[in-house]
C-alpha cells in the first residue's frame, strides 16, 4: 500500500473540493435567475470537461501550462518553477476537470428552489447575502453535498489528465490511481490489488454517505 500516494490523493481531492465548491455556489447563485446568452455560453463551457476525452484535455493543459506555453512561461518567469510535472500542475488540472461535477449539482439545486421562496425571503426583509445564507444554502444543501462527494470521488479516481500533466513523481504527482497503474506496470499485482480495493471501498462509502445525507434533506424538504 502506497500511503504516500493515498495521502496525496486525499489532499488533492479535498483541496479541489474546498476551492471549487464555494466557486460553484457563487456561480450557480449568480446564474440561477438569469436567462441570457451569457448563461447559455457559460453553462456550455462549464460542462465541456465532462464530454471531452481526458487525453484531449491533458494535451491542451500540457500545451498551455508547459514551459513554452503562454501561461506556463509566464508562471516560470514569475516563480522560477514550472506548472507541469508539479503538484500545483495537477491541482490546476483537477480543478478544471472537476468543474462540471462541482457546478452542475449545485446549479440544479439552486434552480429547484421555487421563485416564490426567494420572493418570500426578500419580502421578509432578508438582503441578498442573508437570503443566500439562511434560505438558499440550506435548501440547496443536498446539491452541495453531492457536488462535494462527486468532486472528491472523481479527483481520487482521475487518471488520464493527471498522468499527462503531472507524470509520476512520488510525493508530488503520484496519486493513488497512478500508483496502481505503476504497480501493474511493475507486475506487482498484489500491491495494485490492495490499493484498488481501498479505492473501491472509499468510493462506495462516500457514495453511501452522500445518499444518507440526501435522504435526510429529502424528508425535510417534502413540503415542496
Amino acid at each position, binding site marked *: 500500500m502506497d500511503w504516500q500516494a493515498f495521502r496525496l490523493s486525499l489532499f488533492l481531492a479535498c483541496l479541489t473540493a474546498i476551492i471549487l465548491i464555494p466557486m460553484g455556489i457563487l456561480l450557480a447563485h449568480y446564474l440561477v435567475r438569469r436567462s441570457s446568452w451569457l448563461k447559455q455560453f457559460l453553462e456550455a463551457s462549464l460542462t465541456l470537461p465532462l464530454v471531452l476525452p481526458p487525453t484531449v484535455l491533458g494535451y491542451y493543459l500540457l500545451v498551455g501550462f508547459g514551459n513554452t506555453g503562454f501561461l506556463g512561461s509566464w508562471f516560470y518567469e514569475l516563480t522560477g518553477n514550472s506548472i507541469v510535472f508539479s503538484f500545483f500542475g495537477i491541482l490546476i488540472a483537477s480543478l478544471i476537470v472537476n468543474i462540471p461535477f462541482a457546478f452542475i449539482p449545485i446549479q440544479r439545486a439552486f434552480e429547484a428552489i421555487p421563485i416564490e421562496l426567494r420572493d418570500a425571503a426578500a419580502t*421578509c426583509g432578508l438582503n441578498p447575502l442573508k437570503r443566500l445564507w439562511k434560505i438558499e444554502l440550506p435548501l440547496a444543501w443536498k446539491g452541495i453535498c453531492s457536488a462535494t462527494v462527486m468532486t472528491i470521488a472523481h479527483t481520487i479516481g482521475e487518471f488520464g489528465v493527471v498522468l499527462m500533466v503531472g507524470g509520476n513523481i512520488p510525493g508530488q504527482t503520484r496519486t493513488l490511481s497512478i500508483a496502481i497503474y505503476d504497480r501493474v506496470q511493475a507486475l506487482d499485482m498484489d500491491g495494485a490489488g490492495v490499493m484498488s480495493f481501498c479505492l473501491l471501498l472509499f468510493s462506495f462509502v462516500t457514495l453511501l454517505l452522500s445518499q444518507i445525507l440526501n435522504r435526510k434533506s429529502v424528508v425535510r424538504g417534502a413540503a415542496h
Partner: protein
Amino acid sequence: MLKAELIQAGPIYLDMHFECQVGELLALVGPSGSGKTSALRALAGLLPVTQGVIELDQTVWFDSAKNIFVPAHDRLVGMVFQNYALFPHLTALQNICLALPDKVGQEYAYNLMEDMQLVDLQNRYPSELSGGQRQRVALARAFARQPKLLLLDEAFSAVDYPTRKTLYEELIKLRERIAIPIVMVTHDLREARLLSDRMCILDQGQSLQQAPAELIVSSPRNARVAELVGLNDIYSGTFFQGPIPGQKSDPKPGRLLWGQGVDAHPLEIIDKGRLPNQTEVKWVIAGEHIELMREDRGLANTIAARISKIRQLGDIATVQFIFSIAHRPRMQIDLSTRLVNDLEFQLHSDIYVRLDPRGIHIMPVYTNPMQKQAEKLRREKSLNMAVVLLVAGEGARLGNIPKVLLRVSGKTLLERHLESMSALGIQTCVVVTGAYQAVITQEIQALSRQLPKVYLVQNIDSKKGQASSVRMGLEHLSLIVPEPDLVIMMLGDQPLLDVADLRQLVERFKVRTHGQFVFPQVADKRGNPVIMSGQVFREILLQSPEQTVRGYMDSHPEEVDIWQTHNEHFIFDMDTPEDLIMFQKKTGLVIELP
C-alpha cells in the same frame, strides 16, 4: 396612502394606476394574464418596472423619473403567496421569526402566534401542517415584519372553502389591529366583493375601473368591465342625444337604439352627458329597474315579451323572456316565487316588460384586439367606388364664375379633386355641370394625366337646386357603373378637401357599424361629401324621380351614420369673397380667378 403608477411596454405590458388608503383593502381583480400578480410583485419590489411611481405615505419606493428603486428587502412589505411560500427547512416559529425586524424581540412572534392559534404548531415544519395552517403561518409571517403595506397574492385560493372562510375572518380580525393599506390580488369576484373596500378591475395589463364593488357592478365603465364582473345580460345598441321624436322625457333625455340597423328598437334613457351623439354602446340594466306586468300601462320603454323559461329555486324564481321586437333579444331576472305565482306567470305567457330609463346603464364599446383586427380587415377591403362631382353652382356671389376652375398654386380645384380620386383608386367620376359646361369640358380635355374616367352631364335647369343635380348624376352613374359598392357625392368648391380627408371618410364608411350613409359633421354643421352604399344607390333610383338623396336620408335616420369630426376641411367651401380671403389666410396659398 399607497399610490402606484406602473407603465411598461414589455415583456409584460402594464398601464395601471391605483391608490389604496390606510386601512383600506383594495382588490385587484382580473382574468389570468391581466397583470395583477405582476402589479403586486412590482409593489413589493420583486419586479422592476420601466416607468412609474410607487409611493407610500411620504416614502418613495420607486420613481423612474428620479431613478429611485428601493429593493424588496428594504420596503416594509408583508406578502402572502398563493402557495404559502413557507421555508420548508424552518419550523413555523422560525418562519415567523425570520421576518421580525431587527429591533423586535421574539415575544412579538409569540403574541402573533397566540392570536392566530398557532402556538401548538410552533415547532412543526411546514410539511407537517395542513393547508389552512400553513396559510395562517404565512399570514402571521407577513404581519411579523410589521409592514407598512400588506400584499395578498391569491392568498386564499389554494385552500378549501371552509378553511377559506376561517382565513377571511382571521384577516378581518388582523385588519382591525393594524391600519395599513392592503392590496389583494384575486380572480374570485365573490372574494373581492366580500373582503374589499374597493376593487380595481384589470385587463391585459390595464386598470379599467376603480371603485367600490357595488358601484362597479351597477355601473361598469365599459362593456369589458361588465363582462369581467360577471354581468350576464349585456346588450348592444347606439346612443343618441336628445329625446325620441314626438316623445317628452326628463330630466336630460337621450335615446338608445337597441340592436343594429333596421331591426333596432328605440329606448328612452337618461343622458348623463358623458358620451357623444351616435356612440356605439353596450348596455346593462339592474334587476330592480326591470318591471314585469300583465298589461301595458302605457309607460315609457314598455315592450311586449314572452316567457321562455321559468326556474324555481325555493323562494327565488329565475324568469327568462324573449322580447317581441325584431331582433328578439332575451333577458332574465330573479323574482320572488310568490310574485311569479301572484302574476300567474307561466311558460309561454305573454307579458309586458318595462325597462326603467333610470336603470339603463350605457357604456362605450371596449375595442379588444379581436375587434381591432376585424376592423382592420374591413378598412383594408377594396371597394368599387364611384363619384358624383357637383359643379353646377354658378358662383353668383363671387361674380359669376365657375368655382371649380379657381386655381390654387397653379392647379384648378377640379384637377385637384380628380387627382385625389385617382390616388384613392376611384375609376369613375360623373361631373354634373350647369351653365359652365363648355369651359369645364375644355379644362377636362386639357388635363392630360392619368385621372379617373370623367363623364359630363349638364343640368340645364340649375334653378331646381342641388338635389336635382345629385339625382341626375346618380341616374347617369347607374348607366356606367350599375353596381358600385359605394358612391361619393362631392361638391366642387371644397378647396381644402384632399386625398387624406377623402380616405378618412371612406374608411369611416368601411368600419361603420350601422347605416347606409356616412357624412361628416363638424360641431353641429353638416359637412360634405356624403357617402352612400351601392344598396341605397340602387334603391333610390328605383323610387320616383322626385326622391332626393337628402329626402331619403331624412326619412331613414337609422341609416345615417353621422361622423363627428373636428376636421374643418369637410365644411369649408367657397361661396363668398370672404371665403377666398379666409382660405388664403389659412393656407398661405394664392387663388387665381378663372
